[in-house]
């Protein structure tokens, strides 16, 4: 009998490994659906009227990106505009999806072919996987490749040096010193600040922050640090003490997980009133916990109030718009002006970050007060530190960092 048990246990371990490997097949460039774009177009237009009320106010055009098919087939099999995703799902209701919507919208409005590429191996993707995705895009006829996420930097430098005719848009990126690459980053600390300020002004004193990327994602870290500063400012103004749970646990791969759901369940159970969900699909775990406890969530990157009733507001950054503007510049000849030497930073001044006032459900903080606050950030009257290394408890905010 012992032998059987030994064999069984060995099998369990071997199979565990096999199953882990098996459950993540290469997410290579997917074959597009056979539906021609022309056929999808009229359908999309008729739907627009019905879904107009669900439109994000930040969207630049009347058409909602949701109505545009994610897959299209071009007549000659080449795709002029390509999008390479960050880790996580394409439809993460957040970073990838927001960028992709800007890409789709531009391509659709200008009758250009478009396609998305997910680097192989999901959240374990290496620089080679990302480079392969970019290479596939370039060889598939792409003239502009939009790459989302700071992790693409190394692969992008390699691909951009090889395909000098192709323009690269590097969202959440920096200058790579190449003419055909523009790195666009955002002042996330500003909308994080506004979100933290709004939460405390709304009357919440028990806050939470769950970040993706395991603490290595600069954008997420800026969001979180801004959030703490905003909470501090509002707490000082109201003279209250705020307690905040702050963690990057279980969010490293930007995926939903049972562990994160239990963790946030525990937070809500012990008094946390609102959690800032900052990282792609971890949103699903946090809203599930919030819904179970009738509590609140703050969304990130895009207006997430349409995804869950628990969302009171979202810290927006104009990723879709940035992609849209970069694509416009790439095709109308104003690339060099836009690229600004390879690096663009967008913030409150450019209207690229903020909170969606049309859909928020805050009751104790008015839109007028928000706009006054926003103007102060634009004018520089309120300065927000953007170095997350300074994160610490402040006079009114007690930080409980869970590691």
């Amino acid at each position: 009998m012992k032998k059987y048990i030994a064999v069984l246990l060995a099998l369990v371990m071997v199979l565990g490994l096999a199953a882990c490997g098996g459950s993540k097949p290469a997410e290579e460039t997917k074959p597009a659906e056979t539906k021609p774009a022309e056929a999808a177009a009229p359908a999309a237009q008729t739907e627009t009227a019905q879904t107009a009320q669900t439109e994000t106010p930040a969207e630049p055009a009347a058409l909602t990106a949701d109505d545009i098919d994610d897959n299209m087939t071009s007549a000659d099999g080449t795709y002029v505009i390509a999008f390479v995703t960050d880790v996580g799902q394409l439809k993460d209701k957040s970073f990838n999806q927001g960028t992709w919507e800007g890409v789709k919208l531009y391509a659709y409005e200008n009758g250009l072919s478009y396609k998305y590429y997910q680097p192989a191996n999901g959240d374990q993707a290496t620089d080679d996987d990302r480079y392969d995705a970019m290479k596939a895009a370039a060889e598939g006829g792409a003239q502009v490749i939009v790459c989302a996420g700071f992790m693409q930097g190394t692969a992008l430098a390699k691909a951009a040096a090889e395909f000098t005719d192709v323009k690269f848009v590097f969202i959440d990126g920096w200058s790579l010193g190449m003419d055909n690459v523009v790195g666009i980053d955002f002042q996330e600390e500003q909308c994080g600040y506004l979100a933290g300020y709004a939460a405390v002004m709304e009357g919440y004193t028990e806050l939470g922050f769950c970040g993706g990327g395991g603490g290595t994602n600069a954008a997420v870290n800026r969001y979180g640090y801004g959030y703490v500063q905003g909470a501090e400012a509002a707490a000082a103004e109201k003279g209250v003490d705020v307690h905040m749970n702050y963690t990057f646990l279980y969010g490293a791969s930007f995926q939903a997980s049972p562990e994160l759901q239990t963790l946030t369940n525990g937070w809500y159970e012990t008094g946390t009133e609102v959690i800032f969900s900052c990282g792609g699909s971890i949103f699903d775990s946090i809203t599930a916990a919030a819904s179970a406890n009738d509590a609140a969530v703050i969304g990130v990157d895009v207006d997430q109030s349409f995804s869950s009733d628990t969302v009171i507001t979202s810290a927006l950054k104009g990723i879709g718009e940035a992609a849209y503007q970069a694509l416009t510049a790439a095709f109308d000849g104003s690339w060099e002006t836009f690229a600004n030497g390879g690096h663009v930073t967008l913030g409150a001044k450019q209207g690229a970050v903020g909170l969606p006032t049309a859909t928020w459900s805050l009751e104790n903080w008015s839109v007028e007060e928000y706009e006054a606050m926003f103007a102060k950030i634009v004018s520089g009257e309120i300065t927000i530190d953007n170095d997350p290394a300074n994160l610490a408890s402040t006079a009114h905010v007690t930080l409980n960092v869970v590691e």
Partner: protein
Amino acid sequence: MAFLIRQTLVYAVPLMIVGLAGIFAERSGIINLALEGIMIFGAFVGVLFVRIGQQAGWFAAAYAAGNWISMQGFVLLTMAVAALMGAVFSLLLAFAAINLKADQTIGGTALNMLAPALVLFLIRIIANQNTLQMATGDSASWFMVKKTMLGYDKKAQLGFFASAFLDKVYFATYFCLLVFVILSVILYKTRFGMRMRSCGENPQAADSLGINVVKMRYAGVLISGALSGMGGFVYALTTANCSANGDVAGFGFLALAVMIFGNWKPLNVAGGALLFGLFKCIAASFSTLDINGDGVYALAQLGISAHFYRLLPYLITLLVLAFTSKSSRAPKAEGIPYDKSTR
């Protein structure tokens, strides 16, 4: 404490029911290594069914009216569908192992490899990504039983028992416990159960007394498949916000381990599942775990790394296995294809 009990049940129940699935197969003489694969498949079928139901608006009126009792009907229906499809999926193993007399561990392994690949393939076709989610809303707002639904205020204090067992729980959890008890009784206290167990110990003797070994083994595997399919969906519902992504975090293999250290006995399996569930829950929520209700998060104050807590459930499983495997006693004839001519 109430929170700890509730969350422990959430993790333990899928493990328990799938552990029982393993018992049924092995007690009838078939090693079912495919528990993991069937769970994955069951989770997928269940989520897909919920999604289709939502899109077709089957329970939309009940949801809008806040009729939470009808919503439990939706859950039960979905569990039934997941169980049915789990049983159908397990037929592959039954056919290979019983009719073709194939090596059972290899058959199970094949299903474990097939399930995630097949499920991901289908999810990509249906949802255009790697995760299949509900069409609208989340599992808590659709399927959870909460005190606010029963007319209590959000801040109302319900007392220990009610807040541990009646608030923020899924009916599916208790239904699984009920099924667990009923099937355990069937396995030990009925003629059918005794005959099935005899086929796992000495099929030749059972056959000589007029018991149809092939039928009994089919029954064992089918019940096993149905329970795993159901367990897979319950796992997706209660811990993964009713989403399927071709992965159940190794719960099927854990169920096998729990079954072995439970010595192929339902009560011990239940104990093992609860033990594992408890540590899994502690691992995830130690940062705000208030065990004795004094407002102090003792485990967080110990200052031990989170990684240690995350290691605990697996460490405990290994330790318990190491100490109990000496006395463990598997069904004698498991893994051996039944051959009438050998006596």
